[in-house]
């Protein structure tokens, strides 16, 4: 009997864990290879339709098209009214709007 000691079982479980991680990394690499055509298709759509942003959240225009937003969009209701869309709390202003990057 190979696994007659508890330490044997423990080391085998560790090995299984490491193997699972290797399988995950391999699966990720294979999936990326298989998805090449899909990526090309998405890139073609972006090129043909001249799209600029990902459709991640559609609740406000500055979260739907963050790269097209200007500094005032989160304060569209009033200069001092705070952003009221939940996704806005998770979305920073684009780097090109920050003063140190030569933005507005």
């Amino acid at each position, binding site marked *: 009997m190979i696994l007659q*000691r*508890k*330490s044997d*079982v*423990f080391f085998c*479980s*560790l090995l*299984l*864990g490491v193997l*699972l*991680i290797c399988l*995950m*990394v391999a*699966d*990720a690499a294979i*999936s*990326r290879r298989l*998805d090449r055509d*899909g*990526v090309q*298709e*998405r*890139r*073609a*759509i*972006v*090129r043909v*339709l*001249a*799209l*600029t*942003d*990902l*459709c*991640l*959240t*559609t*609740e406000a*225009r500055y*979260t*739907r*098209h*963050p*790269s*097209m937003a*200007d*500094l*005032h*969009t989160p304060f569209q209701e009033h200069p001092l009214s705070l952003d009221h*869309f*939940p*996704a806005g*709390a*998770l*979305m*920073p202003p*684009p*780097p*090109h709007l920050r003063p140190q990057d030569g933005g*507005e």
Partner: protein
Amino acid sequence: MGAIEKQRHILDFTLSSLGRRTGKNIALVIVYALVIFLIASVLFLADALKNEAVQILQDAPEIVVQRLVAGRHDLIPTHYMESIKTIRGVQSVESRLWGYYYDPFSGANYTLMVNADLNDHPGAIIIGAGVSRRSEPGKPLQPLRKNDLIPFKTSGGEVLTLQVKGLLPAASELVTADLILVSEPDFRKLFSVPNDRATDLVLQARNTKELATIATKIAQIHPDSRPILRDDMLRTYDAVFDWRGGVILMVLSGVFFAFIILAWDKATGLSAEEKREIGILKAIGWETSDILLMKFWEGAAVSLTAFFLGIFLAYLHVFLASSLLFEPVLKGWAVLYPHFRLTPHIHIYQIAVLFFLTVIPYTVVTIVPSWRSATIDPDAAMRL
């Protein structure tokens, strides 16, 4: 007895000792695995989205020129194209017509965009997969198909009914879920956009190294314009996912520290049974270093089990279950949400960071206070 054999004996004993408190240790592993699962899910999701954005947006327009009026994005006069075309290095300039439409029936926001191919087919639209799932409150969900009609309300208050002539591929949902492609006459009728105005201009340059110079020249010729470079768009997504992942990780770090405090508390406040066990072990000849080794193996067994379990579940959650638990966070107030399956993107560096952020702190935090209990007087321990 060889060093390896000694370690194995201590490990055998530690595992038996853990087995005597099965319920408590299983609960500990489950909570620990849950913490690792949440942190790993955030890291995997943010990295996969960032990677997808960088890959897809490689072909986004090189420069987008907007017009700003009183600090807000405004319609741009199409005659700006003439002066921009004269800038050296500009290959082509085209106008884009796009905007947002709130559908009062479904409560969803759509992005309407003019597609030149539809200009010969007024009344026809091509919709994204998210729009095809449009449902009205109280009515069962019935996906829109080819030749179905969608009513739109124009800015003048009239109803404009457009017919679905095609659907955009479901595989492109990450960029097209809320998209409706319309003809130019329909777009102008819907939003009353004058014929000499466009939403913005997109341009291609002969040499991508000249983009920044061209952008500067555009801003000089038209001081009310704002050029946005493709690099800016890509950097926006880098920042969005770093920030988004950072905010969620900051919230989760509270959970992690609470867990570390629990582990510390557990290690410092040993139960009477555990103290008696240590006392007996020291009485039969175990040294302080052996007790510390036992505690090390105990911490390693718990944390490694939780680590592998947490990582594996996070992988399944993000890449097979489409981040089901994070959907409400991403969705916010939006009615329309893209259904997409991300291409797995993980690497050893990520796993190593997770390992050093989760397993090492737990092992250290449990072994350090064990020093106190390991130096306990055996006689006093057994009398407890």
